[in-house]
């Protein structure tokens, strides 16, 4: 029994095996890089998701993968609806996200909707937990996610086409062209997803009553309803291009266009008809980065420039009855962002120095055209602003002995006419035992997140006097790994503690509208465990498992709004105290069977954590997904067939109040990769 208990813990706590090489690192001499890598990530709590982990499911967005493969909490309103990510009990705007080095958090809202990023469009995702995030950006009071794309290493032409067919009239198409010759390589990706997304559910929040002649109820039934207004159509196009110059310089260009057109489903307590109202969000975005880097014997230089455009239109329309629709809300925002970054690294066997400077210039315009003044046509909601954001970062890493290493980082940010205080962070690492790669890690950071443009300028309500949010965070952990011929495993455990002051919260004012204020203080602490296990029991058998577990306490320690305030010392709304996910994979010859299991403990929907009400708690849920994949190898092509069953036990559940999730559903996908001789 003890063995089983131990294995259970091991199973839960294994880390991702053999951190995958970065795209850039792959191109280099491995021996030299090992030393450099170890210096670069020294003391950090980092989770790397490689392309194999990201591309398990054609219908999957990055939100789905992050929820399954990391301790990040994804708050999702359903497929193809807003899905935000929070690390360690913080808010989604405390997760900083970069794409090929460029920050992609909305300068208006501060967050990223991960449901708009197809997982097949990302080649690598590095998750920086807690203090480690300052190496990527400021403001990651919870953490940071660095996404990257690139070209393929294989010479010649390769083509891959995947088609998915799923329940609720869901269709996914993915096409990839890859080409490499000499110094040039190119990869083009195309993705289109369409779904009616009108899954059926029993609506336990409504009843159809039967009445007698006197108007007394004689019986009832729960209506079987469909997810109303939930259809979506997403289109993405991504081009990556690489050129290796004659010297040691390499050029990369990435350009990504995305258009998502989505219905916002009605709540299950909504009695309006699908035909009377329409609630839609259309996003157009274009992101592009050109980068250059040069690797020397002991140094690295790189420079990047980028441009990003996003245009979001949210419409709430009503049917006028004559085939015409009238706007009730017509809120549109346009954001242009220009980005540049320069970075330098220099290292010896014991030292590594690095510095970078990045600059973002935003131009934003937001307005609701459906809301105009009484007198004329002037929009009353919205604003126009421009803001320059500058971030300077420097880092010194030192390894005085083989087993011991330290890192000191300093960052400072300018936003508009304001300067954040200095953002220092310190990391230490000690190799306790070479056998089992037993490593102790510790880090501490002070961090600031400056207010978003909506926080400062939104009309009405924006508060130009807001201070940046301030975080102090500590982290300690231990990791171990083993890589054998027939087996390998990896365990990583981290404990964290952080305080966030001046937490920005939008609250109603005396004037009736909402306005942000620096009111809250939040203490969060907990444990993150992750790990993986790989076995090769026989020549044709593969057994893999990876999993994670998080215990998160995230408590409001702000000043009570009045003596009657019951929210002090309570868990933040929608943050589960426990969460866990495990993936098990069994392979035999060309067959692969995958089992995904996810668990979230109950989430409160009131700041006072009321449990005796029927509306204040969302019950815990377990999700089970199963898939079976078969690879067929022909002389002319390789074909992948995959069947996925999601919500295997047809569980009825809500992840967010008022939004029932789909029951058991199926996806079948076929992938074809022609072989070119």
């Amino acid at each position, binding site marked *: 029994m003890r063995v*089983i208990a131990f294995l259970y813990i091991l*199973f839960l706590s294994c880390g991702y095996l053999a951190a995958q090489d970065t795209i850039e690192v792959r191109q280099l001499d491995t021996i030299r890089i090992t030393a450099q890598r170890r210096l670069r990530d020294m003391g950090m709590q980092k989770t790397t998701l490689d392309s194999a982990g990201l591309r398990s499911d054609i219908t999957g967005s990055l939100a789905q993968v992050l929820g399954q493969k990391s301790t990040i909490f994804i708050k999702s309103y359903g497929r193809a609806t807003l899905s935000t990510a929070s690390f360690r009990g913080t808010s989604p705007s405390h997760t900083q996200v970069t794409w090929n080095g460029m920050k992609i958090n909305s300068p208006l809202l501060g967050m990223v909707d991960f449901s708009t990023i197809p997982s097949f469009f990302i080649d690598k995702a590095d998750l920086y937990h807690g203090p480690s995030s300052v190496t990527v950006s400021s403001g990651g009071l919870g953490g940071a996610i660095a996404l990257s794309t690139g070209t393929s290493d294989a010479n010649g032409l390769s083509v891959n086409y995947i088609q998915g067919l799923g329940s609720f009239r869901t269709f996914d198409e993915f096409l990839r062209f890859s080409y490499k010759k000499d110094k040039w390589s190119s990869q083009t990706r195309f993705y289109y997803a369409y779904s009616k997304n009108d899954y059926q559910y029993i609506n*336990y929040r409504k009843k159809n009553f039967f009445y007698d002649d006197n108007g007394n109820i004689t019986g009832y039934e729960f209506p079987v309803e469909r997810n109303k207004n939930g259809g979506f159509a997403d289109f993405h196009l991504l081009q990556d291009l690489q050129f290796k110059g004659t010297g040691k310089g390499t050029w990369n260009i990435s350009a990504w266009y995305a258009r998502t057109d989505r219905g916002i489903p009605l*709540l299950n307590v909504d*009695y309006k008809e699908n035909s009377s109202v329409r609630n839609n969000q259309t996003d157009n975005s274009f992101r592009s980065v050109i980068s250059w880097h040069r690797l020397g014997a002991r140094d690295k230089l790189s420079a990047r420039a980028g441009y990003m455009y996003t245009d979001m239109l949210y419409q709430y329309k009503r049917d006028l009855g004559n085939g015409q629709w009238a706007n009730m809300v017509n809120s549109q925002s346009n954001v242009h962002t220009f980005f540049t970054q320069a970075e330098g690294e220099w290292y010896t066997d014991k030292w590594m120095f690095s510095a970078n400077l990045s600059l973002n210039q935003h131009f934003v315009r937001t307005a609701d055209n459906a809301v105009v003044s009484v007198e004329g046509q002037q929009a009353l909601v919205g604003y126009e602003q421009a803001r320059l954001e500058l971030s300077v970062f420097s880092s010194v890493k030192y390894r005085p002995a083989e087993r011991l290493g330290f890192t000191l980082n300093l960052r400072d940010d300018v936003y508009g006419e304001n300067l954040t205080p200095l953002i220092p962070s310190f990391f230490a690492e000690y190799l306790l035992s070479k056998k089992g790669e037993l490593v102790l890690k510790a880090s501490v950071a002070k961090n600031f997140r400056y207010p978003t443009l909506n926080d400062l300028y939104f009309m009405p309500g924006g508060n130009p006097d807001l201070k940046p949010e301030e975080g102090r965070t500590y982290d300690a952990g231990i990791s171990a790994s083993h890589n054998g011929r027939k087996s390998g495993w990896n365990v990583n455990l981290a404990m964290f503690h952080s305080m966030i002051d001046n937490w920005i919260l939008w609250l109603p004012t005396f004037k009736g509208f909402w306005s942000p204020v620096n009111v809250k203080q939040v203490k969060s602490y907990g444990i993150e465990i992750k790990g993986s296990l790989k076995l090769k029991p026989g020549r044709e058998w593969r057994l893999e498992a990876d999993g994670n577990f998080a215990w998160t306490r995230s408590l409001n320690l702000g000043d009570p709004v009045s003596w009657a*305030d*019951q929210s002090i010392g309570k868990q933040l709304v929608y943050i589960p105290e426990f969460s866990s996910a495990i993936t098990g994979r069994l392979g035999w010859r060309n067959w692969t069977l995958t089992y995904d299991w996810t668990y979230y403990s109950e989430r409160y929907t*009131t700041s006072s954590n009321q449990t005796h*009400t029927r509306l204040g708690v969302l019950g815990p849920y377990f999700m089970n997904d199963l898939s079976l994949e078969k690879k067929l190898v022909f002389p002319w092509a390789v074909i992948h067939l995959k069947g996925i069953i999601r919500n295997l036990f047809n569980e*009825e559940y809500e992840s967010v109040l008022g939004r029932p999730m789909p029951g058991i559903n199926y996806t079948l996908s076929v992938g074809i990769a022609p072989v070119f001789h």
Partner: protein
Amino acid sequence: MIYKRTYRATAFMLILLLTVSCMKYGPAGTEDFHPSPPGEGLFIVNEGNFMYGNASLSYYIPRTGNMQHEVFIRANGINLGDVAQSMTIYSGLGYIVVNNSGVIFVIDPDTFRLKGSITGMISPRYIHFINDHKAYVTDLYQEKITIVDPVSFRITGYVPTPGHRSTEEMAQWKNLLFVSCWSYDNKLLVIDTRTDRIVDSLVVEKEPTQLLLDSNDKIWCVASGNLYRIHPGERKIEHIFPAGDQQSRTYLALNPRGDTLYYLNRNLWRMPVNAGSLPAVPFVRLPQRPYYGLAVDPATYDIYVADALDYVQQGKIYRFDPRGVPVDTLTAGINPGFFCFK
């Protein structure tokens, strides 16, 4: 050997996972409430949070101090819905207008059991009864007021309100109904209830909300912190009282005799309805917070002030006696904003 153990452990794990798939989700049970004496009892309509679907109805008996939470869901086994806005009792039935759910639930005010529901509106706000077969329902997002039959629960017609897509509260004098146009508007419409057509309109400050008819047959209105006393027959503003800061949200209530006006903004104030100027000192000094609702008990003259606290927890109701002395603090649901006496 180790592999064998691992397999066994893995198999054990899988079995464990398959068996632990229980969830706390499904139908809600129902309860019987024993009818409380008629003419006694206060319904508190708790808005809940927009897009959370967590509105609720609390029921309070002032004489005993007994408070019952979430009586609608407990009596009927279904949610009240998203953003419960108001409740009106007419002819022995309670009509609860649930704004973002687009529904009006009709309940028995004694048992809280559903008698029916009215649908077909977009974003209903308030219901006002003209007679036994005709009621007006205002809407946040339609350029018309919906006319419903409160007996058959059917829509019977519309009052067009061109140029005003937000209609809010209503007060009637004889056959003239005054309607405030709230969201991004500054008008009061005057509707002839015999013809269901607009006959006049008045301009007030931005975002007028409440309308009340006093014992002198004057209509009181509040908009952006200004109080308006309106002569309904002449359809003219008789007096403007600058009662609060520019744009500050103010709540109104009349005492049962209709001769004293209470208003709430930061502090609680009261004045005779025929006063020529505002009072110099507050009736009750309150902690400086944005409050969420005000009511005066028609039987006892006690005063109720709603406080939504941080807007994501159960709000509080402060009860004062007619002299303004605190009597009790009650816990309601999330964002208590509207009171309805039985």
